[in-house]
C-alpha cells in the first residue's frame, strides 16, 4: 500500500463522504407516491414513501400494498457511491427472507438509471438469475420502474413494470 499523507486521506474521505448531485436528485424525488402495477390485465395500487436518511446520503423506500387482506411490505435503499461512481440498491420484503443488491449507472443524461445484478428465485429454485432493473424519469412527479430477467439473451423476459406518481 502506497504511503499516504494525512491530508490526502482526509481529502479522499471528504470526496467519498460528501453528498453530490446524484444525492441531490434523490432528495428532490422524496415524498409520497401512488404506485400502479399492471400484470395480466389486473391493476394493483400500492403506496410508497421515499425519504432521505444519513444526512442526505441514502434514500429509503417503504412500500405497502394490500390485496384482499394480504399486506405486502417492502423496504429498499438507494445510494450513489462516490468512490465507485455507481448507484447501489437493496431490497427486501415480507414475501421473502433474502435481500438483493443491484448496482447501476445513469444513462441518457440521467433520464434513466440502469441497475444490473443477480437475484435468487426461490420459487423456481434458481440462484443468481441475471436481472436488469431500470428507472425511467418521466417528469419531477412521475417515474417508471421496469425489470427484466436474463437481459440480452434469447431468454430475456420482462418481469415487472410499475408506475410511480407523486400524491
Amino acid at each position: 500500500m502506497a504511503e499516504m499523507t494525512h491530508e490526502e486521506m482526509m481529502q479522499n474521505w471528504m470526496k467519498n463522504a460528501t453528498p453530490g448531485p446524484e444525492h441531490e436528485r434523490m432528495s428532490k424525488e422524496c415524498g409520497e407516491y401512488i404506485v400502479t402495477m399492471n400484470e395480466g390485465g389486473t391493476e394493483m395500487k400500492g403506496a410508497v414513501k421515499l425519504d432521505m436518511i444519513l444526512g442526505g446520503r441514502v434514500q429509503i423506500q417503504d412500500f405497502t400494498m394490500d390485496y384482499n387482506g394480504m399486506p405486502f411490505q417492502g423496504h429498499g435503499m438507494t445510494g450513489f457511491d462516490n468512490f465507485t461512481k455507481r448507484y447501489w440498491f437493496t431490497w427486501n420484503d415480507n414475501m421473502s427472507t433474502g435481500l438483493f443488491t443491484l448496482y447501476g449507472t445513469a444513462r441518457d443524461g440521467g433520464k434513466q438509471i440502469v441497475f444490473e445484478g443477480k437475484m435468487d428465485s426461490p420459487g423456481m429454485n434458481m440462484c443468481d438469475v441475471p436481472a436488469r432493473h431500470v428507472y425511467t424519469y418521466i417528469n419531477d412527479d412521475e417515474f417508471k420502474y421496469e425489470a427484466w430477467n436474463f437481459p440480452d439473451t434469447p431468454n430475456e423476459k420482462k418481469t415487472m413494470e410499475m408506475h410511480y406518481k407523486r400524491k
Partner: protein
Amino acid sequence: MKKPILLVLVGVMCLSAVAYAQEGQMSEEAMMKKWMEVASPKAEHEMLAKSAGEWDYTMTFWMGPDAPPQSAKGTCSDKVINGGRVVESDMSGEMMGMPYEGHGHTGYDNFNKTFWATWTDNMTTGMMFMEGTSTDGGKTIVFNTTMDEPVMDVKDKPVRFVSKWLSDDEHVLESWDEVGTPHEFKAFEIKYTRKK
C-alpha cells in the same frame, strides 16, 4: 391465461417465477409451495429478533495493528420489519468529535441458508453488503467479506465481522482488517448493552 393475483405478488419478490410458470417449466402449485417455505420466518429470524429494542453501545477501535485503542459511544435502536424477517438498526452517536449515524439490516435467507447484513453511515456514500454463516443457530455469526476503503483508495479489501450474543442483554460486533495476511488485526469492537 389469467394468473391468480397471489402470483402477481410473488412476482414482486421473485421476479422470474411468473414467466417460468407460464411456460410450464414448473407448476404454479409447486412454485407457491416452495415460495411459502422459503418466505416464512424460522428459528434464525427469532434469534435475530431478540435484538429488538434500545441499546447503548461502546465502540473501541484501532487505526492499525500497533495503534492505541480509541473509543466512541452512542445508542442503537433495533426494530423488526417485514413481518419478523429483518432487523433494522439505527445507530446514533459520536466518533472522533463528529456526529455519527448508521443504518443497517440483518436477515437470514432461508433459500441460501446464509445470514446477510447491510451497513451504511454518514461517513461514506457507499454501502456494505455481506453474507455470513453460523454453526450455533445464529448465536455467533461470522461474515467474511470484502469492502472498499476510499480513504486509502483501496477496493475489495478482505475483512471479517463477527457478531456474538454474550447474554440476552449484551451482544458484541468485532471487525478484523488485513484478513488473510500476517498483519491481520482487530479494527473495532462494538459492545451493545440493552437499555434498562
